[in-house]
């Protein structure tokens, strides 16, 4: 529909109408095909980012007043104890849940890759939590984590451990979210599994002939071969976990005593319940800066530990 009216690019003689050079026609076709994205880019990203940056330099609710305050919001944020609390909580969640999810998903994928019977069944069970909505997850875990009759504490009791109060406790509310995060790491597992199954068996055979133990094969063949998948999962998880919101919003409203206040929940509270749009925008930009720094750091480090097959041919 977009460009069906366009003459074919290398047709020898354009019949009628537009007489464009092949290059110009390709330019036109290219921009017509990518038009939805270009609109998205200009309006919902470029314009919105500029506006967001502008708004972050103001105090405004967009109804009664707009006041330019320069870096005022950022300065205020630096002295805002709640903001630091939210930043600390979110960092805590990220630093624990990302490595745990990445490793746990890899472990499951490695086990599933051992030519096990019932692969389809296991894959299904491990994958299911990750396709269920955040709302459903929050609803069920609210009761799983109940200190008195929740499954988790009853299970711990069965092996002689007195479970904590989880989401009702300042120390254990975030660890509870981290457990939920690992439970939902099945998406990562699926990607690892795909990566593992893509490793040519010839590599393992060669390693065996060289006398490599299974442990050695894991370190010298498996890990390097799936390192691009690890990188992909790592970056995705980092970006996602800095934006943790629904668990806090639905299960604890940031409590107890702000122990689960996260950056996006704080942003939401400031922007959409108190209508401090300038302040909320400033939080968003700091969040962006953090995500960017972490992504770039991981990408930089990847030269040292990610192996791309193409490099073999150098």
């Amino acid at each position, binding site marked *: 529909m977009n460009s069906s009216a366009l003459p074919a690019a290398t047709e020898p003689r354009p019949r009628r109408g537009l007489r464009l050079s092949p290059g110009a026609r390709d330019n036109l076709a290219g921009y017509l095909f990518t038009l939805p994205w270009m609109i998205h880019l200009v309006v919902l990203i470029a314009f919105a980012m500029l506006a967001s940056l502008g708004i972050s330099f103001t105090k405004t609710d967009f109804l009664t007043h707009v006041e330019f305050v320069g870096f005022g919001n950022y300065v205020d944020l630096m002295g805002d104890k709640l903001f630091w609390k939210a930043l600390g909580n979110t960092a805590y969640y990220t630093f624990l849940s990302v490595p745990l999810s990445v490793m746990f998903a890899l472990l499951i994928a490695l086990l599933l890759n051992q030519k096990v019977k019932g692969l389809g069944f*296991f894959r299904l069970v491990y994958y299911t939590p990750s396709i269920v*909505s955040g709302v459903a997850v929050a609803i069920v875990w609210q009761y799983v984590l109940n200190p008195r009759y929740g499954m988790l504490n*009853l299970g711990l009791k069965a092996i002689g451990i007195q479970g904590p109060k989880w989401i009702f406790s300042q120390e254990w509310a975030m660890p509870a979210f981290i457990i939920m995060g690992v439970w939902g790491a099945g998406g990562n597992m699926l990607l690892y599994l795909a990566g593992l199954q893509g490793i040519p068996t010839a590599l393992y055979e060669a390693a065996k002939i060289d006398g490599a133990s299974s442990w050695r094969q894991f370190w010298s063949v498996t890990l390097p071969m799936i390192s691009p998948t690890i990188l992909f999962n790592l970056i995705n998880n980092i970006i996602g976990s800095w934006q943790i919101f629904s668990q806090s919003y639905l299960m604890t409203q940031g409590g107890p005593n702000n122990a689960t206040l996260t950056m996006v929940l704080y942003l939401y509270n400031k922007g*959409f319940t108190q209508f401090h749009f300038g302040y909320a925008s400033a939080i968003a930009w700091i969040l962006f800066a953090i995500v960017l720094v972490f992504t770039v750091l991981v990408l930089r480090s990847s030269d040292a530990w990610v192996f791309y097959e193409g490099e073999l041919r150098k």
Partner: protein
Amino acid sequence: MTEIASTNLHVGTRHEISDRVMHILGRVLIYALLAFGAFLFAVPFLWMLSTSLKAKNLVSEVPIVWIPPQLVWENYVTPWQFMPYATWYRNTILLTASNTIGTLIATSLVAFGFARIKFWGRNVHFLILLATMMLPGQVTLIPTYLLWSRLKVINTFWPLMIPQWLTAGYDVFLLRQFFATIPKEMDDAARIDGCGWFGIFWRIVLPMSKPALGVLAITNFTWNWNNFFEPLIYLNSTEKFTVALGLTLFQGRFHREIPGLMAMTLISMIPVLITFYISQRYFIQGIVISGIKG
């Protein structure tokens, strides 16, 4: 001497036996670990199922009553009567269907543009697209919200639909990677047969990309069905709610109706679960083909 040789032989077979024992032990360990993990992963769902069929007073019973003495099927019926679940399902289905179809059409056009047509500035634009994948949605959230509120479409479905129809960087990237694997010689052959760019797109590239389009459809279907944040921001009257929002409202209003809540939560999960279970093989194949290594 011969004695030593025979001992060596003996040791050899013993090694073989111990190897086999180790192998069997290893297999047992693998299955035990997998089964234990699977149990931990599945048990919250089993609890949901069990609770959804319980009488209210049995929910907080210790130890857990896994099989209720009487199955209370009304838990699956009564919530529909005191909450507008039918409306919420209609809204969710409408949003999910329109967004999934819209995304598929728009994304395939855009991805084709990036994969096949050499237009001025293409590479720069593709780099920008990759960079936007790192941008947290919160950065653009407030201006976007204000834009929609200027256009007076808050509490309608437009803010939830239009951005979806304008594609997302991640989807475009995925599909472009797939399109790029289709040999370009096919384009030239089609062109000799008189196809323009749209003809190549429609007759050559799309029919060959069904697995990748399937992956895109499933992920977008799931994402839209489960989406919570945007509906929370943009929808504020009950009759506009989606199922995900409705569930939180239900939980807030009737916090003692845990069996009913579990029943409704289970029902809300069914469409996504069925879609995945039916398309599991297809979906996994798609992931492999789309090649995240790209």
